[in-house]
């Protein structure tokens, strides 16, 4: 048995490497052609070389809107589902952040709000996680997908009504899931707490998004599928598969269940949230700046590298645990291999921004998105290092992991989605944000708040881990030394939550107080 399993390990690694080598060979020999010219398919005629920043900057309301008939015809169809997806996502964001803040405060005020079971840390934290992941990030990511896919394919979204149905079902499932968790009805595994009965509804909702995207892809008016499309089209298939396989009731138990749990949980990050965030950045960074991304061929490497390596990293959540050594090693190796696709994405996105720094001043959405893209690189580098056995021994069971989780899910995906919402909504509604200063306030609140959150838990987490590894120090020391860092996290988290309220106010402002553009792109709505 051990020999065959060692072989499996080697096999997996060799297959992944061979696939990658083939890809590089194919690109360099033009077997697969991705022309730098294909990177320009995201622009309509005359759009290149001009910043795309309507609706978010001061003085913009008076500026004449540049009318783009192609984009208008396309955007008009996606507008309604996208507005609904983003609006409901924001509700979950605000609720989820409040639960996160309450959970955070409970860790240094343990006797606060303890009167009933739904208020306990274990449930507040779980509500927080499920609402921000399945409510906020998934729905806002889907909004980006529904907005961007028709634009890169130059055709209006097909079956927009099915998307609407999906959005409604998804929201019902998240709401029911939240109620279930609060009442103590849970499947009991991290990231899979929502009871499987409700998960079926969520999976059905997810399936509603597939057909419209496939139909749009097949009806497309351009030959080439732009890089964001690869990420989105793959993710929209990956998620339902993952979600259904992981939720099959009664099939797994014991440690096998734990490997399924972490195979799922890391793939939700790697094959769902990450492609949503990376794909959005890949479209909006060049689009806002008005210049194509730096090296289009490298983006292919980034995508397939992500698929090959990210899909196998899940067991780095169980390092040092009761799982076979070879699976752990497999996941550690693939975690380190993730440097490759991450660097590929970094080259494309950061170089494009770095060559056009002037644009950051002109566009607040770009500021969010390029900051988020940078945090993707940071979170991934940190994660690859954190997966090394020696480092993981210190950080595994500590708040260091929580800091890392927020670097990825928050500073990367959430902040990209803030930028995307600010870019999309003026175009979807034909209005401008009434208080552009509040967009900047949002940016600074969440970035400063996040910095406080991240650095306090990172430093505290390392100290906590070192204390736990030192047998001469009682366990209580690791608890007591964390308290000031946990308090600091609550302060950072309050700033973040305040930023989210400002975000919600901005959206309300757009809905109720916004000046209309004279030539609204969505006149038909």
């Amino acid at each position: 048995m051990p020999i065959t399993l060692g072989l499996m390990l080697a096999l997996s690694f060799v297959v992944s490497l061979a696939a990658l080598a083939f890809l590089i060979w194919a690109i360099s020999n033009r077997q697969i052609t991705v022309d730098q010219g294909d990177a320009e398919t995201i622009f309509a005629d005359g759009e290149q070389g001009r910043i795309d920043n309507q609706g978010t900057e001061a003085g913009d309301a008076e500026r004449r809107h540049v009318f783009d008939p192609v984009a208008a015809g396309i955007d008009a169809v996606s507008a309604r589902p996208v507005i609904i997806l983003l609006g409901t996502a924001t509700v979950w964001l605000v609720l989820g952040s409040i639960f996160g803040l309450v959970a955070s405060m409970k860790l240094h005020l343990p006797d606060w709000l303890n009167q009933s079971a739904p208020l306990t840390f274990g449930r507040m934290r779980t509500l927080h996680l499920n609402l921000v992941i399945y409510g906020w990030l998934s729905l806002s990511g889907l909004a980006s997908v529904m907005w961007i896919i028709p634009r890169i394919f130059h055709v209006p979204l097909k079956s927009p009504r099915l998307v609407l149905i999906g959005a409604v079902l998804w929201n019902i499932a998240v709401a029911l899931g939240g109620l279930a968790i609060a009442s103590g009805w849970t499947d009991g595994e991290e990231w899979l707490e929502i009871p499987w009965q409700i998960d079926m509804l969520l999976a059905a909702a997810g399936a509603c998004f597939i057909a419209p995207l496939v139909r749009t892809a097949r009806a497309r008016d351009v030959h080439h599928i732009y890089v964001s499309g690869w990420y989105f089209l793959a993710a929209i298939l990956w998620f339902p598969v993952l979600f259904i396989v992981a939720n099959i009731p009664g099939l797994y138990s014991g440690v096998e269940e734990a490997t399924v749990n972490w195979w799922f949980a890391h793939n939700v990050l790697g094959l769902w949230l990450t492609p949503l965030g990376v794909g959005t950045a890949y479209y909006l960074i060049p689009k806002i700046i008005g210049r194509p991304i730096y090296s289009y061929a490298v983006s292919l490497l980034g995508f397939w590298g992500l698929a090959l390596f990210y899909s196998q990293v899940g067991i780095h959540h169980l390092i040092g645990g009761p799982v076979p050594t070879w699976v752990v090693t497999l996941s550690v190796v693939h975690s380190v291999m993730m440097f490759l696709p991450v660097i590929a994405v970094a080259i494309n996105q950061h170089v494009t921004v770095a060559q056009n720094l002037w644009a950051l001043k002109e566009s607040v959405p770009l500021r969010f998105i390029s900051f988020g893209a940078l945090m993707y690189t940071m979170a991934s580098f940190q994660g690859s290092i954190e997966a090394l056995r020696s480092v993981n021994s210190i950080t595994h069971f500590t708040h260091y992991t929580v800091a890392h989780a927020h670097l990825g899910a928050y500073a990367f995906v959430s902040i990209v989605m803030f930028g995307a919402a600010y870019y999309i909504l003026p175009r979807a509604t034909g209005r401008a944000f009434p208080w552009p200063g509040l967009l900047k306030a949002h940016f600074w609140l969440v970035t400063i708040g996040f910095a406080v959150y991240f650095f306090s838990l990172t430093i505290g987490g390392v100290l906590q881990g070192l204390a736990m590894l030192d047998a001469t120090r009682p366990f209580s020391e690791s608890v007591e030394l964390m308290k000031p860092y946990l308090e600091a996290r609550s302060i950072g988290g309050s700033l973040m939550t305040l930023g989210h309220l400002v975000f919600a106010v901005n959206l309300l402002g757009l809905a109720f107080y916004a000046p209309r553009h004279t030539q609204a792109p969505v006149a038909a709505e």
Partner: protein
Amino acid sequence: MNRYLPLSILALAILAFATLMLVIAPGIQINARPAPEGLRPYTEAEARGREVYVSLGCLYCHSQQPRSGDQAPDGERGWGRPSVAEDYAYDQPHQLGTMRTGPDLLNVSARLPSEGWHLTHLYQPRAIFDWSIMPSYPYLFDHKDTAGPGDVVVALPAAHAPADGVIVASQKALDLTAYLVALDRTYPAPTNGLRDHGYGSSEGPEPTPAEEAR
């Protein structure tokens, strides 16, 4: 990258491959192992208690997977020998956990076998440790004027006791405690038990001095 169908097929094939490696192969390997002789299934009360543990989310602060002495001093802290996959044969949902905001609990009963201790601790952790940040669980208990027949009264220091009457354990508290008192997997590990041996020899890690002493 111009065709939709090859893109989808390849993307799903890669996911299927990952599923084979991370789910199916280890699943076959783990399921081939019998439950250890020293491990017994949970009784009804213990299983109910485990449900309380799951539903209150103890998992988010407590792991159930002591590490080997090669990696961390878990054994010396009294958290038990390094656990192996076989130790979890009856666990569903698994509660391995990824946080140690509180200590590992896989063998908590070997350290803290007293039911009374757990009831006090659940009612108010700070009645036992002033430094603890664990939540109190008052809703698992009832405040009564006098204890009825069969009531289990919780022992409390004056600072945490109610001004009058007594605190008695609810059925949930008793079940949860039954589960905690059952958490003891200190029986000898099966030979060649499945676990991550990435830190030591595959014969199993060296026992720590504290483990040796037991």
